[in-house]
């Protein structure tokens, strides 16, 4: 599949944006101003970028506990996202959600959930809604290798298949669920092949290559929009950091980590080289894009830092939507 130059450039920009955002989060964490825990998306940027570039603004994504990258890639406001991570009242969830629940509904994010695999059934419902309401929108549902071992995986894949729902199942196989290697909990060579049991077309792609992820998603979106039903895309990738804030990830074998964390496997570098080689990007353009992103992220950080914390009594607000 030939990917046009404009798209390649966008894939680069979006991968980089997620990278810079997460690096900023890591810095702020170092300044000790990010409360709670953190599941950084560093290393997996090409997945969120590749999937979301293939979606329209009106399409939906369902996120996870490792959700910053999904939300930013889908076009969420960075100010509100960073403010949320710092627990400020200007955050997209008014400081109620934080890292594990970072969500911007108006950017097409159905939600970020702290309960592993709880997003899959919600994606089924959203896709059903798109189908029943007769929109042409599709839903992309992100989840981890670990999540694919939960019962909701089987139930959700099955329902999406029997009802031919406009759904793209995106497994981010970063080889681990916390410290548990996927090899230990999944008997098959790939997670993708589990979809065979539900008659769902599936494919394995290099999750560090935004172009590959994009191409697979374009196919899946086509199928979904034309009423042919769901697709499962397994994106093989790797976390640059530990699972959560203090995890040094010592359980990952040295040679494995060295391979995945090498410069050649770096998501930003891969898409940058592709774009330049295809003539979609010049060094100068790349620098310009980078400068703009860096500036935007810096502005978001200032905004988040300057914002106020919510007032304690705001705890009581928003339990219900209203009364009739």
């Amino acid at each position, binding site marked *: 599949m030939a990917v046009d130059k404009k798209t390649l450039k966008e894939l680069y920009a979006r991968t980089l944006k997620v990278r810079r955002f997460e690096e900023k989060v890591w810095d702020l964490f170092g300044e000790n101003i990010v*409360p709670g825990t953190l599941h950084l998306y560093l290393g997996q940027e090409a997945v969120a970028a590749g999937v979301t570039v293939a979606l329209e603004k009106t399409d939906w994504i369902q996120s996870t506990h490792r959700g910053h990258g999904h939300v930013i890639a889908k076009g969420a406001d960075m100010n509100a996202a960073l403010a949320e991570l710092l627990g400020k009242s200007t955050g997209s*969830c008014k400081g109620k959600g934080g890292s594990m629940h970072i969500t911007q509904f108006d950017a097409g994010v159905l939600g970020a959930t702290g309960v592993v695999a709880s997003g899959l059934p919600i994606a089924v419902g959203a896709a059903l809604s798109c189908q029943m309401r007769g929109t042409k929108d599709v839903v992309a549902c992100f989840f981890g290798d670990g999540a694919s071992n*939960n019962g909701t995986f089987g139930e959700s894949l099955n329902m999406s298949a029997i009802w031919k729902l406009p759904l793209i199942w995106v497994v981010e196989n970063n080889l681990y*669920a916390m410290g548990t290697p996927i090899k230990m909990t999944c008997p098959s060579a790939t997670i993708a092949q589990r979809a065979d049991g539900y008659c769902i077309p599936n494919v394995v792609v290099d999750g560090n290559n935004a172009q590959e992820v994009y191409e697979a998603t374009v196919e899946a979106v086509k199928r979904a929009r034309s009423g042919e039903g769901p697709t499962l895309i397994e994106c093989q990738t790797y976390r640059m950091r530990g699972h959560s804030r203090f995890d040094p990830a010592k359980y990952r074998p040295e040679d494995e980590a060295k391979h995945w964390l090498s410069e050649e496997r770096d998501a930003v570098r891969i898409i940058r080289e592709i774009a330049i080689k295809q003539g979609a990007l010049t060094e100068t353009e790349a620098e310009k894009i980078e400068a703009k992103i860096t500036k935007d992220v810096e502005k978001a950080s200032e905004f988040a830092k300057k914002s106020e914390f919510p007032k304690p009594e705001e705890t009581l607000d928003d339990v219900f939507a209203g009364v009739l």
Partner: protein
Amino acid sequence: MAEITYREALKEGLREEMQRDERVFIMGEDVGLNWGGAFKVTKGLAEEFGEARVRDTPISENTIAGAAVGAAITGLIPVVEIMFGDLITLSMDQVCNQAAKMHYMFGGQTSVPLVLRSVFGGGKNLASHHSQSLESWFMHTPGLKIAVPAFASDVKGLIKTAIRDPDPVMFFEHKLVYDKKEEVPDEDYTIPFGQAKVRREGADVTVWGTFFMLHKALEVAEELEKEGISVEVIDPRTLAPLDTKTLIESVKKTGRLVLVTEETKTGATTAEIAAIVQEEAFDWLDAPIKRVNAPDTPVPFSPPLEQYFIPNNKRIARAIRDIV
């Protein structure tokens, strides 16, 4: 006797029971070699007893609980860990419909000697999916025994009783007590279920509470002593069976009762206790029973919100002063 942490004491209890009885085994997510449990309670046990007896599982809470039921009714004694108390929601069928009911529903033919360990409570800015206190749900399910150890010297004796008990035991811990230290007996000792402990004797008012709130109540009692208010603090140690005798005796002595837990107020364990006390000791009460709980909201993320949500020393002291 040695001064050790709650975490150490719990692990010691688990270790001694595994040495004593080959039928005892542990399973749960990341309980084994690579992690040792999210709160490090089982760290070192896989090394000592092997991976067959300290089993890492996939992220499959429903089947972890169900497998424990199956193993328990066929001759083993499973001690399962559900990483966060919030996630027992995914195990509810197996816990509440199966484990809790089998002995009764099958006319006493089989019993279900399993232990399900999990952890409740906020204070770590982990937001709505990782901070709840849901013990009352299980108190509302006949057939379950519920241990709620809050101190190192209790947790070892209680885990031993839980493992030796013929019925399903929900064994709840709290995130903020793992590092609390106390003198803990070195030898094999058990603490019978259904025996509260008077943690501090007093004459003017009884405070009944659970988990971290007991630690706070003891601090408050110390403060109020200086003002001439003498506070008795009672730790139920198990919610089912529930020691009402110790509580009622205390209320008859002091004539006043303050109930303190981190649960959201409506339908909390404290509501049940208040009902019991007014049934059994109404004539001895010199003031209305006071409840100190969290407000009826999900647990918010941002620090000022979470601090507002979780009852603090000031609120406990105010409730005491209000009725003394």
